[in-house]
């Protein structure tokens, strides 16, 4: 096993909410008074977890709480999480921009962070001057930059403008030049934040290739992005952050699946869909009141490859409405791309208030391959003018899990079996 190059021990980071002003000085003086007497900081005892949607009671919030992990040499670690989960805070601590409130980070080798491209570009200076400046800011020496200068300019593709002040550059050119410098950094550990979101498709491809190369050379990369495809193609291991805590730490695909809600706690078993208010749309005339999968009359979300898959769907009309249309889709768990869908009118005529509509859907056996599938259900009016209710993995609808007992490797590739016909002609 390769050696550990980065070790985070119990990192926590506390932030104060609200504005800095006359009100905060009392806390500062109190803290100082405690520390001066050798006591503990009183404000470290309190603080809410980092859940941006819930209103907290405290002025303090733990952006990160007790984070522990190790990164081994040559690892490509992906860090994922929703907005405000603590990803950037973690990167800032690792890249020394700020320190953790408590805890330690131990590092072996040179570490460089790429939280932004073109940091420190001065608009009045030329591209050439800025390459040197930016390179030095990122930690390169002048000789290093000089020796790689031609390569950098080549990579950026802005040769023609290299002696023009960067304030005349288009924003895309600026990003290209910035990334080109960063791409030629050679630290043992590289931290990359979502910098690939900019630039055109061709350049993005180039950047991804470069990051893959860096990883291929046995250097360690920590990568943060919301682009799950990029993540799963580059990274090996992953960390999923949720409200400032590590929710999952394993191989990247497990993390992504969990991030996409694939392993949602089966809240449905304890709470019916009817009572859940956090649906995408839940104000329609007709609402789902129950969704359940069955195998041979038994409630389950796990199916064998050769079993028929049945769904029992119950709806209830809250208001009079014009017919009922049902839509269902299966989604790819990593990207949530729709794999297949179908739409069918259940009722043509009016559905009166209080009326209950129930139906079942059957997917034939041996159509879905081994793996997991996200489900997406929606109902609307028969003319398809609006959707009444949508239920998907966001409200912790379990994923469909297809397994096989006798693992014929052929069941394991692809997502579907499609009907086919063979004519043998002799």
């Amino acid at each position: 096993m390769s050696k550990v190059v980065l070790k985070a021990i119990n990192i926590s980071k506390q932030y104060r909410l609200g504005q800095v002003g006359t009100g905060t000085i009392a806390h500062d003086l109190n803290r100082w008074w405690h520390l001066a007497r050798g006591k503990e900081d009183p404000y470290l005892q309190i603080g809410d977890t980092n859940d941006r949607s819930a209103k907290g009671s405290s002025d303090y919030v733990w952006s990160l709480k007790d984070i522990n992990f190790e990164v081994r040499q040559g690892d490509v670690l992906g860090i994922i999480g929703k907005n405000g989960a603590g990803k950037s805070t973690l990167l800032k601590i690792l890249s020394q921009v700020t320190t953790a409130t408590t805890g330690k980070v131990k590092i072996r080798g040179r570490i460089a962070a790429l939280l932004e491209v073109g940091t420190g570009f001065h608009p009045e200076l030329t591209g050439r001057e800025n390459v040197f400046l930016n390179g030095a800011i990122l930690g390169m020496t002048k000789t290093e930059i000089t020796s790689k200068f031609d390569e950098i300019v080549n990579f950026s593709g802005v040769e023609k403008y290299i002696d023009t002040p960067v304030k005349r550059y288009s924003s895309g050119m600026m990003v290209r030049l910035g990334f080109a410098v960063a791409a030629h950094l050679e630290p043992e550990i590289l931290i990359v934040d979502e910098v690939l979101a900019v630039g055109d498709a061709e350049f993005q491809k180039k950047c991804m290739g470069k990051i893959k190369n860096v990883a291929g050379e046995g250097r360690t990369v920590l990568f943060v992005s919301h682009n799950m495809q990029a993540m799963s193609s580059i990274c090996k291991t992953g960390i999923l952050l949720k409200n400032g805590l590590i929710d999952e730490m394993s191989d990247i695909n497990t993390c992504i699946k969990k991030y996409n809600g694939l392993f949602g706690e089966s809240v449905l078993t304890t709470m019916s869909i009817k009572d859940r208010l956090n649906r995408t749309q839940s104000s329609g005339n007709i609402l789902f009141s129950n969704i359940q999968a069955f195998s041979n009359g038994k409630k389950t979300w796990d199916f064998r490859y050769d079993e028929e898959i049945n769904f029992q769907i119950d709806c209830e009309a809250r208001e009079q409405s014009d017919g009922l249309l049902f839509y269902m889709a299966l989604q790819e768990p990593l990207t949530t791309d729709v794999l297949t869908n179908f739409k069918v009118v259940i009722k043509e005529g009016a559905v009166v208030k209080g009326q209950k509509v129930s139906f079942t859907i059957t997917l034939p056996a041996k159509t879905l391959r081994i793996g997991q599938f996200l489900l997406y259900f929606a109902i609307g009016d028969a003319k398809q003018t609006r959707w009444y209710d949508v239920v998907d993995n966001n409200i912790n609808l379990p994923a469909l899990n297809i397994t096989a007992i006798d693992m014929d490797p052929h069941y394991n590739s692809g997502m579907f079996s499609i009907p086919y016909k063979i004519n043998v002609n002799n």
Partner: protein
Amino acid sequence: MINKEIEDDNEAWDLVLEPKTSWYSLGLDQILRFKDLLFLFVRRDFVSVYKQTILGPIWFFVQPVITAITYAVIFGILADIPTDGVNPILFYMCGITLWNYFSDTLSKTADTFTANASVFGKVYFPRMIVPLSVVLSNLVKLGIQLLLFIAVWGYFLATDNTLHPNITILLVPFLILLMGFLGLGFGIIITSMTTKYRDLKFLITFGVQLLMYASPIVFPLSLVSEKYPQYKIFLLANPITSIIEAFKYAFLGVGEFNWLYLGYSLSFTVVLLFIGLIVFNKVEKSFMDTV
């Protein structure tokens, strides 16, 4: 596996990031590692000033000349403040050249954290590089202005026999160094104290102006010794006073040169800089959270 863990921990780590710092770790080795960045910053500060100008660095001459003429008119002619028998233009230029180095260094280092927050928030390098680069780029500017001063001084030396330059002129580099470090010391203390509460910043803008009048720039120290000897002690408490006086004495042969006073300025600078470095190093670690 357990053996492996122990081995991992025993093997030296290159870098350990912790919330607490020991007060004595000033990170000088880090600054050495980033010395290329230091010089690139100096170059940037210097070059970007006269980009898109026709006269270029010549603009550095204009400021002291116009200021000296203005002072000569207002303080010399209108207010009739004596200049120890030296030509007023030369007298004021002498004071202004050195004073500007101090005030430019101070006011620019005093907003190190706030002005560079966007860069500091994205990448780590020893923060001290920025104020150091200010000291150096202002030193370049001072060098240019000193050339101008020496030219004017040379002219008066040749045409006028009231000037008595002397051997203390050898102390000039030392005086400049003291001025730079004084500005740096004040500047880094102020920037460290204004990351969270900005109140002090308002004090600085006019404080620097007022400090000039508390230093013998537009008047000679001899004037105070003569007219208000009881208040001289306040002027001497200002560490800049003896530096400016020594500078004038070296070039013009007027003013008070006193080793004791200079010793005071030196110790003041050393203590100030030392406190500044400690405070700065403490603040630089997490100022991003409050800036």
